């Protein structure tokens, strides 16, 4: 396993799946999960580039940051979703179109 390509392929697949989930899921919690997928695909890429391109450990450090960020983001997002649910009694994003033209 001395090539970067397989890592990038895996990262790309996870990223696409994440985006797909974000765009197609109607459930806000599902979209949040999609966001986690995108973040993790980025982590895979960071680690891969850190191993094959960069000689230091910058990639790993940023990955750890991203994981912490993801945790924080998930906590806040879930809180927002809970609030939305309280107000609208739904977490279906198609119903949440207050910003429509």
């Amino acid at each position, binding site marked *: 396993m001395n090539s970067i390509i397989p890592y990038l392929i895996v990262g790309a697949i996870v990223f696409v799946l994440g*985006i797909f989930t*974000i*765009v197609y899921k109607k459930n806000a919690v599902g979209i949040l999960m999609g966001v986690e997928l995108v973040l993790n695909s980025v982590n895979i890429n960071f680690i891969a580039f850190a191993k094959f391109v960069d000689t230091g450990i910058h990639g790993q450090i940023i990955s750890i940051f991203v994981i912490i960020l993801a945790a924080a983001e998930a906590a806040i997002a879930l809180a927002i979703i809970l609030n939305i649910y309280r107000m609208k009694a739904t977490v279906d*994003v198609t119903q949440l179109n*207050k*910003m*429509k*033209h």
Partner: protein
Amino acid sequence: MITLALYIWLLPLLAFTIQIFLGKRLPRKGDWVSVSAIGISFALSLILFIRMLSNYSPDFQVTASVPWINIGQFKIDMGIYIDNFAIVMLMVVTTVSFLVHVYSIGYMAGDPLYNRFFAYLSLFSFSMLGLVLFDNLFGIFVMWELVGICSYLLIGYYFEKDSAANAGKKAFITNRIGDFGFLLGLLVVFTAIGSFNLSDVYQGVAQGKLSGGLLTAAGILLFCGAIGKSAQFPLHVWLPDAMEGPTPVSALIHAATMVAAGVYLVARISFMLSFDAMLVVAYIGGFTALFAATIAITQNDIKRVLAYSTISQLGYMIMAMGVGAYSAGFFHLVTHAMFKAGLFLGSGSVIHAMHHAMEKTNVHEDPNDIRLMGGFKNKMPATYITFLVFTLAISGIPFFSGFLSKDAILGGTLAFAMSQSNPVHYLLPFFGFTAAIITAFYMFRVVIKTFYGEPKRPDLYEHIHESPKVMTVPLMVLASLSIFIFYTLPSFNPISAEQGWYEQLIEKPASAVSAQLGYPVLEISEQIEHSAHVNGMMISILFALTGIALAFLFYFWKKVDVEALTEKIKPLYTLSYHKYFFDELYNATVVKGLLAWNNLLAWFDSNVIDGIVNGSAFIMRHFSSFTGKFDLGFIDGLVNAVGDLTQDVGQSVRKIQTGQVQYYILGALAGLVLIIVTVLI
């Protein structure tokens, strides 16, 4: 000295201010305010005068000035300049003014505008004294205009009479013409020298800053002011009409002081007169002297005779200035002020008596007409004797003041003619001597017709009576001032003032022009001067006696039939009687010409100028209606079209905003993909 002069100058102004605002409410209508102000001025002048006599220094002078305008390089100082010349003039002005004030108390008694009359007299005294005291031409010009306005106000004093109102206007407008020349002269002087101050101007001319033709022009232009103010030919027409004013005014303003201001001005600027300018001055003066005298012969209004006599005598003074006999000309100004003011006050006394007689007998005729008088010497002894003294003085009879000064002028003129190579200049003494005969003749004509012979109108004669003391005392004072002794002291020589204080103290001002090269300079040798004076004296005594004898022959002994003689020389008589038709000539040319020109201008204004204005308005209106349409149709259309388009586009594009975040993300992704693809390809 300066403080004294300031008091002399400003006291009449104070009196004027009090009189004009409070005069009506003061006891006696406030005449005592004006009289005491000028009285104090007179006393202070007397102090100055005595100081001058005790100093006995011909070059005495004091100046003081304060900055008046000070803007960068542009500086004008206003100041006072006192020399012997100014002190003598102050003395003359305050003496005559004081006596006239006193006389007016009697003459103007009962007049409805009594207080205003005294207010104007005070204003006049202030202006005239300022004119004498100022050290710069600009200040002199200001005061010059002020005496002009006083003259206007006092000529038109009986403004309810049309003739008086018109005479005032005539005097003012005629003076304006001369003053315009004066103003131009001031501008020339200021442009060339940069100062109005007389001593600066002197320096400037001496250094050649103002020279050649421009210097001559400046001299003649400044002299134009004197032509107007001193009623010299051709602007003499206003002075006879000015006699519409009250007689004390005629005595003060139109005989003794204001009209002499022109002579004073010429004397003050004499240092800058070039030889050509002097010739102009001399010929205008000489011609006026003779010309006005010939008119005076045929006039029947006592004041008009005196008015023409004044013009003639002023002509003498101006001629003296022109031939370089400055001190003689100024001397005549002094003596003339005394006897001519006296003559006017004397005639005022006669007119006053006539006026009262006419009121009593209910006759409505001209109280000034000498044809209605005659034999008054028995009824009015004081007026008669003083009038006779003044007449002898003006005729140039030895022992009287007029002889001294007139002889000095005639001698100076003769000396000038003798020193010039061109024999044409003998015209000047000719003018002078002929005018001397005529002067003696017409003055005695008035005396004989008024005071001698049988009363022409016994009905009026009965009611003639002597004027009150307040009027006769000033006459007596003036009469005594017409005696030679006041001018020849400390010597008692009745035929020459050469040893007198006047000739010793008033020196001929040095000419600044002679310092410049290339000018013919007037130089008269002692010898010529002496012989001219001796000859001039002989001739002038002879001529004066001839004139008097002729007058007695014509009007007293009636050896010559005046009527027949008049018929024989009818054309000449008519010319003189109608004042050479100058009023008619000016009416036909200047007045009618101006009216025609004004009509033309009015036509031009109402047709051409208004046409242009109306035409441009018409064009503007049509152009505006076109641009209005363009504005509404095209510009507004364009603006609306932009608005509509924006609205339409917005309407269709707003659909994109679904509110679904997922669509936005999709959009962003699509954009990202597009960018990546673009970059990669």
